[in-house]
């Protein structure tokens, strides 16, 4: 039975992390494309329309990959996590259902108009389609994050006959946990969209092709990227961190590698948590900073892992390293994009080959940062699937064996490998074609 739990957990982790590679780009890119379409109308210049058309092709393959890998997520609640569905379905079903009827319908319907309708509908409707696609992606994200926030901090429910019943929709949608988690997720996605845009634009400038598309992509990508890299740190990141400290002190202790409960806790910049010796090895501390960041008071008490029963602790190392990777990369993004913005302002970025190279090579790292953030959130919640209410081990399907789950996991791995290779191939192909395509 424990094998079955590990198999189900691994399958969920694998499929959702692969899936999230795509929406993390489309949420940000959808907004940026809507910005390009708006600029096209406001400034009445074709180059914005050409750029929107180019980025829409990237958006289209990414959206398709996101849709096909997203369907398994909804299925898995029933196939692998039947007891979770029975227990929490009356609540989490609401937000999943809202994603379908409010956001996903709009996004899918208007994507067709946006991609294929430019010569068929009037320019204003085409602009509206672009806005609806961007809006749909971002609203879709809200319902998914609200679902997750309920699993992190259950609100607006009562337990009836051993399962959750929703008592207040507004409590579910206005969960204090979602208030800063959602803006943080969206800013992560905006950074991803922006840095991919800046990276591809840099490639064009470096290879001396598509100069207009390149300059426009770099300018928009660097500007929005820097704004959202800062927003990711403050207010969204730090205030979401305060929420984590308030609602899930165990996760906070694991994120920061705090073993001893202490007042005026220091912030560990680096260090290696050792769960055997129950201490942080070779740390570099900023005194009293953690107490301040988590509770707004330099003398506040931070609960340490030693005062929390073992069966209520997440895997500490994974949470700690994922958190430090996320924060470290976030800091690097601010530096890279800050320098790029400075060069842009001085008018030398487009000829600064070193920094264009840096921007191009930085493209994969927003993905790493976003995924690390989800690991902190999801692994940090363990051993609970619904925090404080249902344990992950009590959420699986009892009539599905570990062998079946392993078999289907292998199936997913094979298909996702194929999909991943195809996606990268098509991405590179579209970049290679540039804006020449689409004028036919």
């Amino acid at each position, binding site marked *: 039975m424990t094998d079955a739990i590990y198999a189900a957990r691994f399958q969920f982790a694998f499929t959702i992390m692969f899936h999230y590679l795509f929406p993390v780009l489309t949420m940000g890119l959808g907004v940026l494309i809507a910005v390009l379409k708006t600029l096209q109308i406001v400034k009445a210049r074709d180059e914005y329309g050409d750029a929107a058309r180019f980025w829409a092709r990237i958006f289209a393959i990414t959206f398709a990959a996101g849709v096909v890998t997203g369907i398994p997520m909804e299925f898995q*609640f029933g196939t692998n996590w039947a007891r979770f569905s029975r227990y929490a379905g009356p609540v989490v079903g609401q937000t999943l259902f809202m994603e379908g009827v409010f956001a*996903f319908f709009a996004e899918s319907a208007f994507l067709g108009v946006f991609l294929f309708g430019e010569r068929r509908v009037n320019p204003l409707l085409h602009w509206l389609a672009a806005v609806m696609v961007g809006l749909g992606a971002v609203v879709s994200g809200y319902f998914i994050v609200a679902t997750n926030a309920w699993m992190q901090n259950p609100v607006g429910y009562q337990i009836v006959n051993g399962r959750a019943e929703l008592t207040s929709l507004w409590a579910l949608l206005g969960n204090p946990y979602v208030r800063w988690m959602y803006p943080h997720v969206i800013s992560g996605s905006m950074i991803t969209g922006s840095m991919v845009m800046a990276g591809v634009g840099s490639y064009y400038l470096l290879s001396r092709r598509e100069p207009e598309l390149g300059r426009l992509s770099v300018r928009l990508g660097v500007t929005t990227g820097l704004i959202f890299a800062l927003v990711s740190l403050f207010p969204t990141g730090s205030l979401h961190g305060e929420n984590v400290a308030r609602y899930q002190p165990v996760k906070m202790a694991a994120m920061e590698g705090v073993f001893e409960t202490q007042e005026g806790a220091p912030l560990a910049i680096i260090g290696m948590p050792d769960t055997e010796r129950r201490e942080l090895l070779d740390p570099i501390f900023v005194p009293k900073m953690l107490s301040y960041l988590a509770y707004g008071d330099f003398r506040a008490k931070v609960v340490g892992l030693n005062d929390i029963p073992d069966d209520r602790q997440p895997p500490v190392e994974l949470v700690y390293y994922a958190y430090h990777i996320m924060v470290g990369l976030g800091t690097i993004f601010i530096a890279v994009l800050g320098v790029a913005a400075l060069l842009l302002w001085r008018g030398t970025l487009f000829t600064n080959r070193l920094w264009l190279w840096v921007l191009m090579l930085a493209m994969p790292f927003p993905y790493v940062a976003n995924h690390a953030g989800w690991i902190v959130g999801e692994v940090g919640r363990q051993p609970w699937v619904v925090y404080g209410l249902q344990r992950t081990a009590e959420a699986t399907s009892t009539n599905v064996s570990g062998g079946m789950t392993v078999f289907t996991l292998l199936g997913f791995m094979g298909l996702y490998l194929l999909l991943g290779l195809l996606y990268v191939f098509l991405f590179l192909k579209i970049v290679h074609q540039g804006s020449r395509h689409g004028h036919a």
Partner: protein
Amino acid sequence: MVIHELWFVVLAFMLTGYAVLDGFDLGVGALHLFVGRNASERGRAIDTIGPVWNGNEVWLLAAGGSMVVAFPAVYAASFSGFYLALMVVLWLLLLRGISIEFRHQVDSPLWHEVWDVVFCGASALLAVLFGVAVGNVLRGVPLDARGEFQGSFALMLNPFAVLGGVLSLATLSLHGAAWLAHKTDGQLQPRARRLVGWMWWVVLALLAAMVAASFVVRPDFTTNFTRWPVLLAFPLIGLGGAAYLRRAWARHDNRGAFLGSATLIAGTLASAAAGLFPHLLPALPGSSHPGLDIYNASSPAGSMRIALGIYLFGMTLVTVYLVNIYRIWKGKSQQYYI
């Protein structure tokens, strides 16, 4: 309490909506390899569904969402019970989505050929598997005392369910052919029309066989119809759709023929739902559970009421989008993919 009955109607409506809408693009997928004789004709067939297939598939996700929120026990039991079959459905949906979206990205005959075969195979198999699933739900499944079961492939592939699979493939192919006849011109249209002509007979014969088999497999299937004769309207609507399809087809009214096949599918599925009520997942005789129905498998009433409000508001929006979207794409399909 009336909320349970309302959710039964909603769920039946969502699944029927899915079958009618994604049904024609699954049918086009199953047929395009044969109706189109070369890569460009096949591409034209796919162009007819290019802008709309994704929105159609959202009905499946929304139907799944409505099942989670209203009848979580059915969702949990059927999805974990039909585990391997549903995973295969997932993989096919995945391959189908990849093939339709990635096919037109590269201009090479071999690339097109590979994705055409994948698209055809995945679409046809999905049509079969959806029919098999409906067949198994109608027939009932073995349930243990907790309402759990484990459906092996052998259990799923009983003769009744297989008949359901064949019927589903035939019906969705007819639906797809009617769509192609409506949306294309040139070489494709007469071929699609010929298909509609003889597929109509096949579907009617299979449908008659399925109805006869239902009486054998589930003798109580008529109970609801004798108790509430008004429900007989659904089978009559289905038959009316079939008759209208034939008449419109003979008069070269291809749009009318497509609407006829949509009505046929909607009437058939509504009849199945009417016969099943109030069961959602009936138990096979000999099970230690009476079967999952809208009362013993539902969410608490409060959750269902909140979700119904969301649903009515959401579907109003969806209707507005859909009407406008299909209006934008009305008329003969053009080459959308460049």
